[in-house]
């Protein structure tokens, strides 16, 4: 094996390790929803290339209001879906759209765009 092949192999394996670590192994903490007026646990989620924040932590049994603000025109993100709650909503660009839920059971509930390119998680504690 020539030195250049060794170098290429090592760099490649390094990259693979990095990808595994970056996408799968690192768990990043979510954002706790703030309790706003009327007892709603509220969070503002920016929709641009993904959901920011994408992990929202709420308490169970209390109503949740997630305000989505979509700041891009790519058609992928024009709908946000909460399959576990049978809820979905169109997100017109530049408008804040509220989605109200009341998670009764603790658990993790995914939300995503229609094709599943963008994903987020509602963690109910």
């Amino acid at each position: 094996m020539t030195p250049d092949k060794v170098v290429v192999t090592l760099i490649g394996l390094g990259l693979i390790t990095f990808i595994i670590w970056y996408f799968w192994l690192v768990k990043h903490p979510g954002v706790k929803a703030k309790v706003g007026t009327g007892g709603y646990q509220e969070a503002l989620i920016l929709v641009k290339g993904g959901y920011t924040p994408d992990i929202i932590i709420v308490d169970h049994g209390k109503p949740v209001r997630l305000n989505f603000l979509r700041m891009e025109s790519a058609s992928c993100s024009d709908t946000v879906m909460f399959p576990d709650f049978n809820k979905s909503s169109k997100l017109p660009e530049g408008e804040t759209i509220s989605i109200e839920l009341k998670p009764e059971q603790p658990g993790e509930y995914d939300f995503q765009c229609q094709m599943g390119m963008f994903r987020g998680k509602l963690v109910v504690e």
Partner: protein
Amino acid sequence: MAKDPVCGMEVEPQSAYAIREQLGQTFYFCSQDCVEIFDGNHHQNGHLSRRNQRWSTELRDKITDLESVPVVSKRVSTSTRVELAVIGLQRSGGPALEQAIAGIPGVSKAVVNTKESRVFIEYDPDSANVSDLLEAVRGAGFTPGIQNLRLRVKGLYCAECVQRIENALQAVPGVLNASMNAATNEVRVEYSPSVGDMGLLIEAIEAVGPYQATHAFESSEPELDTEAQATEKEYRNLMRKWWFAAAVGIPTMILSYPWIFPILRDWFPRGSDSLRYMWYAMGIASFAVLIYSGGQFFVGMWEGLKHRSANMHTLIAIGTGTAWIYSTIALLFPGLFPSEEFTDVYYDVTVVVTALVVLGLAMELKAKGRTSEAIKKLIGLQAKTARVFRAGKELSIPVEEVLVNDIVIVRPGEKVPVDGEVVEGQSAVDESMITGESLPVSKKLGDEVIGATINKTGSFRFRATKVGKDTALASIIRLVQDAQGSKVPIQRIVDRVSGYFTPAVMILSIMGFIVWYDFGPSPSLAYALIVAVTTLIIACPCALGMATPMSLTTGIGLGAQHGILIRSGDALQTAERLNAIILDKTGTITHGKPSLTDVVLVPGQLETVLITLAASVEKLSEHPLALAIVEAAQMRGLMLRESREFEAIPGHGVSAIVEGLRVLIGNLKLMRREGIDLNGLEDTSRRLADDGKTPMFIAIEGELAGVIAVADTLKDDSKDAISTLQEMGLEVVMMTGDNERTANAIARQVGIDRVLAEVLPQDKAFNVQKLQLEGKKVAMVGDGINDAPALAQADVGMAIGTGTDVAIEASDITLIKGSLLGVVTAIQISRATVKNVYQNLFGAFIYNTAGLPIALGVLYPFLGILLSPLLAALAMSFSSVTVISNANRLRSWKPTQLMPTSNEMEAIK
């Protein structure tokens, strides 16, 4: 009779609680509350000009008079009155609601008017606000009628304008919330419909600055427009990108291989300076393509990486970016490479892949729009204006302003604007858009009309019962949208896979690069690069991601078009695998109310005479069977006569004198008691009873005249539907609370073998469970009212709705049209949709599992096949378009024509 001007109740002048003289008119009041409201009103208001007007109008006048500049400025009076519309208010609920509201600090009085579904509240705006009041209404278990309205405001000149306008609107009594979108210049106002008057809102806005407010298109329709516009904009945007990339791409393609073309070969010989210069030019041009046409991929990648997620954008961006960077390095620093054969450039890959993927996205957008066409059609059904009768005048107003209890006028050819009940006139109404029923339905006094249906022949007036978000159409749209956002269970597995998919592709691509670099043929670097880029580009996570949502959206929309509302993807998938279906008898297989079925006459009697006399007697009775006879007489157009000395004999029947003739209607016991000769009709009676009917003897002047039978009749298409269900391989079971004899009679008629009779309402769910324990997937079909627990217990609960009540909670599927054929169509749609989902998933799966190894060059050692990145880009774009097109294919699905059943075939012969 006089009318209480406050609550609108009819008051006897003699027994009125109080009387007031005002401006030469006398007003009578039903209660202390009403007169106090009136007095308070006059005390501040000083005049009351119009009589017989609805209080709401007066209240509006009052508010306008009292606060001609009704905004921002501190309210002059310390107490304000509002009138809130409350849904689901019944007489019994009144006191509780009054108490709940009166309990709020700052509220001095709350009066409930159940007839108009209103609550009148007097409160101090400093210590309570409308949202508190609404909260109290909700707390008491009622739904406050809230409506949304959008106003377009012109003349915004400052940043504070938004706040100012919102404050102005929120200060208007009855307005719950106002939020302005400065980007669209629209303000969305939430208000209680009885208070919020658009004029008032506009005034409020215009009073605080140099603004001009107009009514913006409300609700669904325009949202649709903006959505369509947004899609169109995005599409044009993508097409511009595509044209630019294509314009650069074609010359780049040709010039990348100059040695193929005779003339170019001479101009750009290998290793020449002219070739290098051309490559520089190509590098710059392709960079422009990457930035302009492919910019979104890089932005998408970056945003995704920030979230530690990788998606299609990541793959395309890395693929095209790598090709460009490699080419540029090879061009600028050829010395870095061991030999000249490595220094080829791949600008064509960059440009053409970008072009093809962008084109694919544009086509996808077009096709995607069509999958949700069904819901767009539904939204488009909404009427825009309504003709209402207010204050003695006919007004044409936007449909959003129609209030509950408004009298709405509908002319031939016009759309019924909201849901309601006919109070005058009659007509035929085309309800096909809502119920799927193709024939026009006749409407007369007391009948329910559904918003968005089209009036065909006559004119009529109706009282609005549901407006705004509560109409059947609005509920349907909401249900459909929610269902389209749900998931088919299989999708959950796909989701888990696709979460790992993109990074896995990246890893594969790197591994491909290593393997080809280490072990591949020369020039290994070039091969490795091509393989890595091709692998990145051919993978199509989109096809996987879109496979189910696209079919689901189409399938659920398809259902809605046929009057079938499917709650969720779950229901859809379960409905496809049913083994057994339990049908509730009453109201599902049958009409659910008795009607006259047989008339057997004693020789010499006339049918019309008999029915006229019977109906004339029975019209005084309250028995449901009696109603059937009266209806039969009305259907035949018979004039009912005066009857007197009506007597109900418990357990026997009734008697009365009509036109001087003593008429007896009743059972065998009655005839025996009166000593009437049965004339051999006893057998007839028994035969009718055996058929599950209720026979009644009629005697005139002590002589038997005939036997009439009343029964709950079958719906016209029940039999066809049941035989079709059986043909589809489902076991059909009938469940009823009736006795065995009646139940079997009906079951025989429709061809059901298995009958669960004498089932108490509370045992229905248990019986469903028993069937489930036999290992079957069971659907339960019922009217959704008595059967709620059974519907919930079943694997799929189907509610047969009639009219406007579509949001039946316990059901997974609601059939708007009250026909069993809907069950057949629902199952057929489920089967078609689920099949489509599987096709898509299979296609996407096969595509990726076949495409990736080929791209990695697995075939190269055997067949010498290596995929070009350009082909990969083509395949990738094509695959996602295929998935969407397949989902679109569902749109052309038609319910299978029902074949005549064998019995009918015999009858024809």
